[in-house]
């Protein structure tokens, strides 16, 4: 595809991940949401794909408007059954009858049912993606219980290996880098096959370059990559309808 030849696609192996866990990290200064939007668009652009989007941060209209500017109609995809959008702005895992654990159980079961339904349809979805925006809000929904969030994530990642679907997570890394024991971050980094980190430039703000992206691709069994390269670092500029990726100094 013409689209999949930019630096981000190259770093991710020239194809969208199958059965992998992708971790997108960002910070207060530089938001990584644009990566999620771009991946969402690319996933939905495939011939038969299915996406479960767990939205804890923004309502559907927000994503709809943004993706529309990028040329992807989320409402239509939802109607066609290619997108299952879970709007959980005030999701609280703990409720009067249930404990946090049960709350996450229900959420996981819903995701699993939806993924399995997609796999077993007549027009079998070849690629299934689960996207979560974002983990820090899951922690708030869990009242700070790291263990429950980790359990939930572990279940989701086993789902990826069982049903060949991919998990794409947005996480605010700077929350954990200031902690003494960043357990959740360490687990996420261990679980993930591809890490994409958005960070500000060392030199500060700039109108033409919005930040830098570091991609760590841990995929070992990739035959067509000759050099076995693992780490990419390049800069980006976010536009309304696309994102430009370029090496420092080579933006035209």
């Amino acid at each position, binding site marked *: 595809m013409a689209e999949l030849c930019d630096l981000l696609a190259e770093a991710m192996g020239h194809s969208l991940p199958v059965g992998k866990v992708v971790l997108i990290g960002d910070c*207060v*200064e*530089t*938001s990584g*949401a*644009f990566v999620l*939007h771009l991946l969402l668009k690319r996933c939905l652009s495939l011939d038969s794909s299915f996406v479960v989007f767990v939205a804890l941060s*923004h*309502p*559907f*209209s*927000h994503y709809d*408007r*943004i993706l529309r*500017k990028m040329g992807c109609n989320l409402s239509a995809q939802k109607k066609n059954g290619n997108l*299952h*959008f*879970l*709007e*959980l*702005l*005030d*999701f*609280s*895992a*703990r*409720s*009067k009858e*249930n404990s946090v654990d049960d*709350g996450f159980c*229900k*959420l996981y079961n*819903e995701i699993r049912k939806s993924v399995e339904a997609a796999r077993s349809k007549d027009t079998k979805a070849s690629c299934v993606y689960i996207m979560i925006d974002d983990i*820090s*809000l899951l922690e*708030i*929904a869990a*009242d*700070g219980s790291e263990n429950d969030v980790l359990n939930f994530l572990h279940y989701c990642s086993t789902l990826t290996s069982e049903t060949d679907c991919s998990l794409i997570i947005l996480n*605010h890394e*700077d*929350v*954990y880098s*200031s*902690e003494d024991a960043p357990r959740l971050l360490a687990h996420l980094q261990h679980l993930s096959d591809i890490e994409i980190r958005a960070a500000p430039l060392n030199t*500060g*703000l*700039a*109108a033409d370059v*919005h930040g830098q992206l570091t991609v760590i691709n841990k995929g070992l069994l990739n035959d067509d990559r000759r050099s076995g390269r693992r780490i990419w670092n390049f800069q980006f500029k*976010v*536009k*309304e309808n696309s994102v430009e990726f370029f090496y420092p100094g080579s933006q035209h």
Partner: protein
Amino acid sequence: MATGGGQQARPTRPSSFSRVSSSSFSPASSSSTSTSLPPGVRIGANGAAFVSSGIPDLDRILGGGFLVRSVVMVMEDADAPHHLLLLRNFMSQGIVHGQSVLFAGPTKEPRSFLGTLPSPVVQKEGLKIKHDVSDVQDKEKGLRIAWQYKKYFGELTAVDSHNRDKKQEYSSDFDLRKPLERQLLNSQNIECISTQDAFDLSKLQNHCLTFVSKLSLKDGINSNAGRIAIQSLCAPQCGYFEKDWDMLSFIRSLRATVQSSNAVAVITFPASVLSNSISKRWQHLADTLLSVRAIPDEDKDLAKLLTGYQDMLGFLHVHKVAQFNSQVPVILDASTYSLKLQKRKSLVLERLNQAPVEGSSGVSYATSGSCSSSKGSLLDF
């Protein structure tokens, strides 16, 4: 469970709450006159609705004002109460426009805070200024103004560039020496709540929900905008202070509430009393993030570094600016501004100007916007 939220442990929302597909302030296709908008609301780029922050300079910096349906957070400085200046102007602007205001503060009598709200300045010399500025603009073409004095002309043109009428409707200049008229404060749609002895945040959360539901009673058209102002949400004297996750939960639910109504929430909080990681979580929850910093009284280094140092009250730093339905980050020319009192009564924000340096020290100086100074880490020009 596709739309409409998940399980609710929190009190259920009132049924008049309805999901509006786009900003309910977006003008009708045929008649987009300003009269169809409720008072104090302006439509900007992308169909985004803004309300004024009460400080015209801040509105300009943020690209229109505070975005409706967003949460603005202000990180306080433990040394100085400058965040109260922002809160006061924000609340006064809402009262002047007849918008509903909900205020929560960590004192026994939050109502007394209303007595400190400023009153709008009465505009008299409007015509005169207009005349002067057009002269100046003609002259400026032939003159090359030294960079140091450009800021004075910049201020004058800014005053004129606003359409006189519109400016008085949308954003007022407030006189900090004059308190707001009593009769405005006795209005029914101003609520005050104390957070000091609150054991948990459920009461405040309920208040916010009912406040917001009252805004949308007139289904869709012309529903009034609302302002929620919360002072020092994580102040140590609040009963719920130790409960980090409860506070985060409250902010998240407030965010969800505000996102589906015509309200703006401004929350100030002393970031220094929170742990680093919890403070970062708070910062991530904000749509617009500002911080205020006090200026040390007799800092000789800063006095040498900046012009007009003596008049400055403090610094305002803009960390994040909310964007409506867009993924493009807002990059400002300058993100740190100085807070000053103009004529001892109105609050203005000015870009920082580095003072010319003695020849021998060799530090290059430039107009505000980009430079590295000896205190580069503190100030971001």
